[in-house]
């Protein structure tokens, strides 16, 4: 039995009076890739942003229930600490446009005012960029701006930036929806590598992607967690008719 790293208990979130995520209970195992899929507006992204307390940054957003990280309620931890433990990659690549590629990778240290010796910084940059298979492509242009890279490279740079902080969990909010197919496949390949060291929670509205990259899949519909199961089971033998309808394309 694998150990649980993130656990949601009766988790609800709201935008004003709009009830977006409804009573979600889920136990996410360590060192696995979890896909969260569902049609647009089903609350999957909102749920994801609740895990590292990014949800509360939006004016009018509130939440009820618990998200536990290694058994501790994230609402009782300082948000800064939560976000250091749980990294996040967004839908659109968002490298810091004022920083070089090198500085983007260590932005989590540099911009937080954590000073490291040069050798340690070099090590983190090389290690993180290698993790996302970007080192070979950018090692000669580390001083160029992060925005100089192509969209797919920028997204991998953003993953490297999150990886550099050595978080326990990495959240991905539709990480490939702004990328071309080749960049998408490169990012997907990374997931197989990254899940050895981190727990990945990947929101996607692309079922094929969920099937390709994940060990377990959660299906959200209308703010509810309909089904959470091994990906193979989910796609071959869905238990809920709504899941069945979704994966057979009867609604989207």
């Amino acid at each position, binding site marked *: 039995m694998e150990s649980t790293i993130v656990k949601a208990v009766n988790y609800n979130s709201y935008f004003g009076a709009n009830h977006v995520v409804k009573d979600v209970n889920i136990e996410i195992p360590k060192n696995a890739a979890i896909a969260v899929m569902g049609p647009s507006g089903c609350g999957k992204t909102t749920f994801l942003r609740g895990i590292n307390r990014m949800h509360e940054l939006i004016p009018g957003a509130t939440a009820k229930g618990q998200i536990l990280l290694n058994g501790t309620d994230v609402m009782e931890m300082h948000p*800064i600490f939560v*976000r250091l433990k749980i990294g996040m990659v967004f839908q659109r690549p*968002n490298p810091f446009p*004022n920083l070089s590629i090198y500085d983007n990778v260590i932005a989590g240290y540099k*911009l937080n005012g954590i000073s490291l010796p040069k050798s340690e910084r070099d090590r983190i940059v090389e290690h993180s960029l290698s993790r996302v298979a970007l080192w070979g492509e950018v090692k000669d242009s580390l001083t160029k*701006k992060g925005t100089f890279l192509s969209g797919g490279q920028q997204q991998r740079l953003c993953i490297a930036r*999150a990886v550099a902080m050595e978080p326990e969990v990495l959240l991905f909010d539709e990480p490939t929806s702004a990328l071309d197919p080749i960049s998408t496949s490169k990012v997907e390949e990374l997931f197989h590598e990254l899940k050895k060291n981190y727990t990945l929670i990947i929101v996607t509205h692309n079922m094929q992607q969920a099937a390709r990259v994940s060990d377990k899949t959660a299906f959200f519909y209308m703010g509810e967690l309909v089904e959470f199961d091994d990906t193979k089971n989910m796609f071959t033998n869905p238990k809920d008719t709504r899941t069945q309808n979704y994966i057979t394309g009867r609604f989207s």
Partner: protein
Amino acid sequence: MSVQVKYRIGKSIAFQGLTILLSVLCVVPLIFILVYIIKAGVTKINWNFLTNLPKPVGETGGGIKNALLGSVEVIALSTIIAVPVGILCGIYLSEYKQSKLAYWTRLSVDILQGVPSIVIGIIAYFWIVKPMGHFSAISGSIALAIMMLPIVVRSTEETLLLLPDSLREAGYALGMPFHRVVLKVIIPCGFSGILSGVMLSVARITGETAPLLFTAFGNPYLSFDIGQPMQTLPLIIFNYATSPYNDWHDLAWGASCILLLWVLLLNILTKVISAKWKVQL
């Protein structure tokens, strides 16, 4: 082509022509002002003009050294007062755009921008000059700082609003606290916009005369004491241009020319800086 189509094309061309004509018309006043003042003033400008103090009536020569240095000092002081307040206020307005306080702040800043400069001068007179008992450079600087404030606030706010939210989120997602997101991400990315706002506000207040009339007041001698009256370019122009002496008129023309060139230079510099330092998003 049918007649109707031709007619419509003709209308389109006429409209286009009209917009071009009127655009050119907008440039005409500036060109006239530039040509006229440079023609009248540039011959008066020489080294002595810049480095001498004004001479009493009857003596030839004399310069505007005191007004030049006075203007620099008064404006530097106003900048020091207005810029930190203005930038921080602009940051607040852009980061908490929906708060009640932001709404009222924005409203009052807009109204402040519409307050006539002479009224600001009178207020500074009653609040600072009267309690102090005499005119002073610092009261002029405060009056000008009040004029600068709305420009700096709004330009900072508008610059920062243009930055995508994804940038802030990138910072927060790395565990950065609010002040670091603002200082290390938001301000560096909006720096060129903020700086051009500051420079344009400096250009804007350099020529302000009314707020200085009953505050800095003017001073025929060289003074660096912020507690004492101080000469500035707009004041020397105002005083000398309304005098009956030809020598003094010449000084006023020269000073006008300097003022104009300064504003022109600041505007061009702003364009260059904002193009060069702009962070490509």
